[in-house]
């Protein structure tokens, strides 16, 4: 697994995608924006480009031919993408702190506060839940997997923004109950971990049938 992860990080993922979380994190400085988009650029840019590169470079055959177990191929891919997701969240968090210092509470959409990051984790967990099991049906076709998982993440983000915007209680909670926001973050991290793990387990089963 360690060697496969090394392969993912050195060969499969273009170095640009390690810089992208920093660049996208800067978008947190746009005042009053839809900050879920900061994380969604991972879904729009990093994932399809990386999976397209895998297909073009015959990554599936390369990985299967190495002295590894099939499960580890799935594990390394899930883990490497999770590392990138955490990088996006980490850089987003740094600039979110600056955002709040500069602008205070957002007027219209959600403020990128601690609870918002909990929801961000849930959005990425949902993205993973759809992405990996669909992708590992073939381990090279990525169009349907990226489309479905991005739509799922988008619907969650749009639903969350609209609920907070139009539901008075939720709006008040997100603006004023800052002490409880940590609970949302912890719950978000747990849901992200559970969804990603379920996604990994389903992908393993599907990948067993794949032929290179």
């Amino acid at each position, binding site marked *: 697994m360690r*060697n496969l992860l*090394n*392969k993912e990080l*050195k*060969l499969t993922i273009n170095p640009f995608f390690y810089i992208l979380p920093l660049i996208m994190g800067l978008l947190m400085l746009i005042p009053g924006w839809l900050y879920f988009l900061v994380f969604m650029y991972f879904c729009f840019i990093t994932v399809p480009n990386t999976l397209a590169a895998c297909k073009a*470079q*015959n*990554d599936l*055959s*390369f990985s*299967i*031919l*190495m*002295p*590894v*177990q099939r499960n580890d191929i799935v594990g390394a891919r899930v883990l490497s993408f999770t590392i990138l997701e955490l990088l996006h969240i980490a850089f987003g968090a740094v600039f979110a702190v600056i955002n709040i210092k500069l602008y205070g509470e957002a007027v219209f959409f959600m403020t990128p506060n601690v609870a918002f990051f909990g929801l961000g984790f849930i959005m990425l967990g949902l993205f993973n839940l759809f992405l990996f099991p669909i992708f590992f049906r073939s381990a090279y076709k990525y169009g349907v997997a990226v489309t479905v998982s991005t739509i799922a993440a988008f619907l969650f983000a749009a639903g969350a923004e609209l609920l907070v915007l139009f539901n008075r209680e939720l709006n008040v909670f997100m603006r004023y109950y800052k002490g409880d926001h940590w609970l949302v973050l912890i719950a978000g991290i747990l849901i992200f971990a559970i969804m990603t793990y379920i996604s990994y387990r389903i992908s393993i089963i599907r990948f*067993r*049938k794949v*032929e*290179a």
Partner: protein
Amino acid sequence: MKILEIDKLNKSYEKFRLKDVSFDLEEGYIMGFIGANGAGKTTTLKSILNMINYESGEISIMGKNFCENEKELKQHIGYMFGDADFYTRRRICTITDVVSKFYDNWDGDEYRRLMDWFGLDDKKKVMELSEGMKVKFSLVLALSHKARLLLLDEPTSGLDPVARDELLELFQKVVEDGRTSILFSTHITSDLDKCADYITYINNGKIIDSKALEDFKNSYRLVKGPVAKLDEVSHKLVSHKTSSFNFTGLAKESEITQTDGIVLEVPELDDIMIYYARRERNNA
């Protein structure tokens, strides 16, 4: 010791089937795996490496069941697939750095020695290598982790005659230690005359024969004679061709005897492949 044993391997596709494929390879020898395009050579090689899920059969490498010991046994296998170029836009040194970490027996000094010997520059990208150089790079990777079994899918196709000859000489050097074996598929049968110890012939997913090169050739006869004699022998022939006055066919050596007006010759590998393929076409 048998380095590779394949027993009754079966795999079905919509329009093609591997049927009870069985053969084995002793350590220290080169086996040519021949067959026409689409005969099942690559499917068999991919099955050996568990790249495709076969329906039944057993594959053993160094006496151990491959499926049960895949991770361990792959440490002893080197491979090269003609249709698969991996990470061609990356530098050789980057690929080597990643690949070397997978192998417990990786020998960095041997890697450097072989790269120098082949004149390969590891600052180059894979796509900048010629076909021959790509094959050599695959071999360097395989030999640097001290692979005991090399599985090479059409390594000589696309190479010029000089590069092909060099490569075949190299194959012979590789097996000189008596521990390393090579199974390489090809449809360029002249390559096999130069270096193969054994031949396994697959036709339409079925193994026709697997034996030492000379025994393989000697177990067939090219039968030539006037068309008038064809009726006498046609039932003994694998298949035949006719011209205005004469016929030429292939028969098993055990099934045909010299008679007046008929000439028997030891066939070339090409002849055997051609007449079996012709039989399949006639039966289709």
